[in-house]
């Protein structure tokens, strides 16, 4: 009699377990979409300064002469990008047309200049520091004064 009750109890228990409410996972496709485009950001620009090629009757301005300092700017891209640099453009001082001018960008990843034209290839990721150099050769003695130039960096993701 005890065994029979036990068997009944076991079977009822099995039935109850099978009947227990089931946790039902309903899978629903709720999509979210978004697009990230290739982009680059320049950091704050540190202006450079220009030195002269000789103390007396200088004819050439450049940032790699003594007294000169490279300009600096950092750039950050989320995709492989190409960087180009323009020729220097005079923005102040006694105006002249140089017989030769160029601007150069140097980085850990390579360099480019305005004359050659082949761009600097930048990898995506962390900010990269760029050193910007320029030269303007008048070919004759420079008039005394304070000269200002700018070069334009263009980055294309």
């Amino acid at each position, binding site marked *: 009699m005890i065994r*029979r009750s036990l*068997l*009944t109890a076991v*079977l*009822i228990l*099995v*039935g*109850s377990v*099978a*009947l227990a*409410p*089931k*946790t*039902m*996972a*309903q*899978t*629903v*496709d*709720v*999509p*979210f*979409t*978004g*697009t*990230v*485009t*290739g*982009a*680059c*950001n320049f950091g704050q620009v540190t202006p450079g300064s220009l030195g002269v090629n000789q103390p007396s009757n200088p004819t050439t301005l450049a940032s790699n002469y003594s007294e000169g300092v490279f300009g600096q700017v950092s750039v*950050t*891209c*989320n*995709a492989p990008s190409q960087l180009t640099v323009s020729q220097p453009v005079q923005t102040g001082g006694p105006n002249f047309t140089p017989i030769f001018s160029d601007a150069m960008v140097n980085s850990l990843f390579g360099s480019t200049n305005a004359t050659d034209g082949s761009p600097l290839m930048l990898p*995506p*990721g962390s900010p990269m520091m760029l050193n910007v150099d320029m030269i303007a050769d008048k070919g004759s003695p420079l008039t005394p004064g304070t000269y200002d130039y700018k070069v334009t960096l263009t980055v294309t*993701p």
Partner: protein
Amino acid sequence: MFPRLVLISIFILTISVVLTRNAYAQTTETCIFSQTVSGELVGDGGTLPTQLVSFSTAGGSPTQISVHCEEPVNLSVSEPIQIAGPAFQPVSSLVTVETANGGSTNSRSGSPLSLPVGTTPVVINLFVDKGSLLAPGNYRYGIKFTIVP
């Protein structure tokens, strides 16, 4: 006597299995989901985003769906599941589900959202943080609901 008991037990068990199957069949129909507005993710963090968000404050749009349930249920939601785009492992992610009357749940909290019988509109927001620059591409995420009657 013993065989009769076995017979009765088998009968009960069979009934139980049949009833259980019916119960399973019902639960698959417990709630019906219909999307009313599809969500849009935008990059957050300036021109070089590190996060994708659907929050309207950031310029995205949440997904809005209607949930129609035949019985009261508890709804919980999964973490975002990446379906397309440059793959990455997020450092942080979150899905929030809110109803108009202030009820809510999210993919981190343990407390599910109670939904009454009938139709309840819910608003779903999604947030994924890569922790570094997001590669350019078209990203797509999905989420999964778990319904407990």
